């Protein structure tokens, strides 16, 4: 009798730990908690106006986060996302008069080339991805500064602006674009050989090589994809805001990185994916806009986001599974 009781208790405990606290479910729990907290503190949080603001600040962020997710899924890291985004936004605004809307493919090509360089450094020259992309980000930042000469540039091309500011079904079109790109990324990760190869490298690079995956070319492709998506994020950023200075600096990497891990893509690689990143982006942008509505400063936001980044990377790592893996 007591034995069966024990078993039942065990199974309830296991039920909780498997459904609520398991690394894959944590994002859902956090989303609900975040909505409840901010809705209680600020009743206008879930109004139509609040949602449109949220959609605006979330969309370009989601695109860049999808790109970073592929790299993190592979067990690497891309520090240059924010710099590439800034660079692409600047390219658009500076050269739209010369090229018209053709500037968009040209910009995306440039960003993919930057991604190729990072991938080449990581794959062919054996540089750890974090430092390689850190160096790339400094160089790209320097180029951006040289091009902009420190001035504020305004985008006055109506056709370019209308890409993201047209309202369709009551929601700005930038949201439809970003959701479309997110679906593409999720399909790419979940159903194609490209996605499976990326997961395989993240799970165990050596095993992936032994099973016939071309490690170097796959790594370069993933970094190119990340650069491309960061570039697309920059294009949408510029067409949505029409100018303004992009918040500069490595600290902006923290919200981006936090939203990837908050979605459930472990830094160890091999788990998660872009399909989860949507939730992470929702969590982080809702926390950010909730804090902003409450009037907290940029610094306080950074402290809270930094703590969330550390907390979520601890929560989404399955420690029992990787006991023998060396973490540097």
């Amino acid at each position, binding site marked *: 009798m007591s034995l069966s009781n024990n078993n039942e208790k065990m199974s309830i405990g296991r039920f909780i730990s498997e459904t609520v606290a398991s690394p894959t479910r944590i994002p859902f729990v956090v989303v609900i908690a975040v909505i409840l907290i901010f809705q209680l503190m600020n009743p206008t949080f879930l109004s139509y106006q609040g949602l449109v603001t949220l959609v605006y600040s979330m969309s370009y962020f989601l695109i860049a986060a999808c790109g970073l997710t592929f790299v993190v899924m592979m067990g690497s890291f891309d520090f240059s996302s924010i710099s590439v985004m800034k660079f692409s936004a600047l390219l658009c605004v500076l050269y739209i008069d010369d090229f018209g809307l053709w500037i968009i493919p040209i910009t995306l090509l440039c960003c993919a080339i930057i991604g190729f360089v990072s991938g080449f450094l990581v794959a062919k020259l*054996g540089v*750890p991805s974090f430092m390689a992309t850190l160096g790339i980000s*400094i*160089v790209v*930042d320097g180029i951006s500064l*040289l091009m902009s000469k420190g001035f504020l540039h305004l985008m006055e091309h109506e056709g370019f602006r209308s890409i993201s500011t047209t309202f369709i079904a009551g929601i700005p079109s930038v949201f439809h674009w970003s959701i479309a790109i997110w679906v593409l990324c999720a399909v790419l990760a979940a159903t194609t050989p490209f996605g499976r190869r990326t997961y395989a490298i993240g799970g165990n*690079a050596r095993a992936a090589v032994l099973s016939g995956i071309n490690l170097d070319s796959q790594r370069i492709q993933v970094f190119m994809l990340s650069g491309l998506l960061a570039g697309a994020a920059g294009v949408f950023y510029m067409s949505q805001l029409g100018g303004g200075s992009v918040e500069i600096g490595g600290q902006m990497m923290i919200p981006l990185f936090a939203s990837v891990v908050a979605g459930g893509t472990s830094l160890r690689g091999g788990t998660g994916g872009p399909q989860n990143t949507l939730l992470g982006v929702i969590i982080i942008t809702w926390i950010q806009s909730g804090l902003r509505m409450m009037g907290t400063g940029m610094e306080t936001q950074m402290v809270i986001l930094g703590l969330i*980044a550390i907390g979520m990377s601890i929560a989404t*790592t399955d420690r029992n599974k990787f006991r023998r893996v060396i973490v*540097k």
Partner: protein
Amino acid sequence: MSMVNRKKSLTILSVVKNYPVIIIFFGLIILFSILYHQRFLSPANLTATLRQFITLMLFSVGPTFVMLLGSMDQSFIGIWMLGSAFLWLLTPIIGPVALLVFPLFGLVSGLCIGAIHVKLRIPSFILTLSVLIIYWGLTAIISKGNPRNVPGYSFLTDDIIPFVPTPLLYSIPIILLSVFIVKRTKLGTYFYAIGSNEEGARLAGINVEKYKIVAFALSGLFSGIGSIVLFQHLGGTVPVSFSMNNVVRPLIAIILGGTPLSGGRGGPQRTILGALTFSVIYRGLYLSTLGAEVIDLIVGLILIISIVISSKGGELRGVEVA
């Protein structure tokens, strides 16, 4: 064995072979002396180069310990920033004793980072980056965004010998202590062992987890001790503006010196050379007519090139790069 090694290292060729950065160092000095023959070797510029060297060296002495293990510690700037904020809070209450807040805070911070990294298995670069941003935010919150002036510590930089910056005199024992720890104690040997092959070190009976935490604690402690000098050296105020450049330049000095990102080689004694070389490069660029953004660009390129060269070593074959 060590006798043989010592004899070998006396020949100039082997020194150059072991420390290729020496060639770059002297090459750059000659190059810049020719380019700006009046200005580069002037006492004012040499003093400025030394001041730059002190900043780089004191910031990079702590992270070198962690880099030896193949991990990464970027929190040193945060220790300097938040420590200064604590100093501003504590000086009116307990006087100059408040300087001790730097090493204490560094030690506690290093211990916590090490424990989180080792026990909860978070990659160190992203953990310390997040910690750095948190410290920056806390500094701005404490000082309310103003660069608060902390008076009463100018004795730290008062001239003792003309043309030699006083912080240089203070930094010599710090550097010597760090070299002693790495070269002459059991700790140093273990750091090298863990850095070159962590699994091997574990199988040889080294308590890897413990020594990793010790490395992070040492890194925090040395960053704290260095910050005592750096605080006054860099203006004597609470720093509030955050720039990734401050984080990257000491890392470049470490890598240029010959401590690769994969760990297991190098050490503080090599970082001295790297910091010297980088300060010469930086002063040379500064004396030229290039704009600040071009200098940033060149610094980024130097970072990439030095990492590529340092990770090209033959021992790295077959090691997975994340």
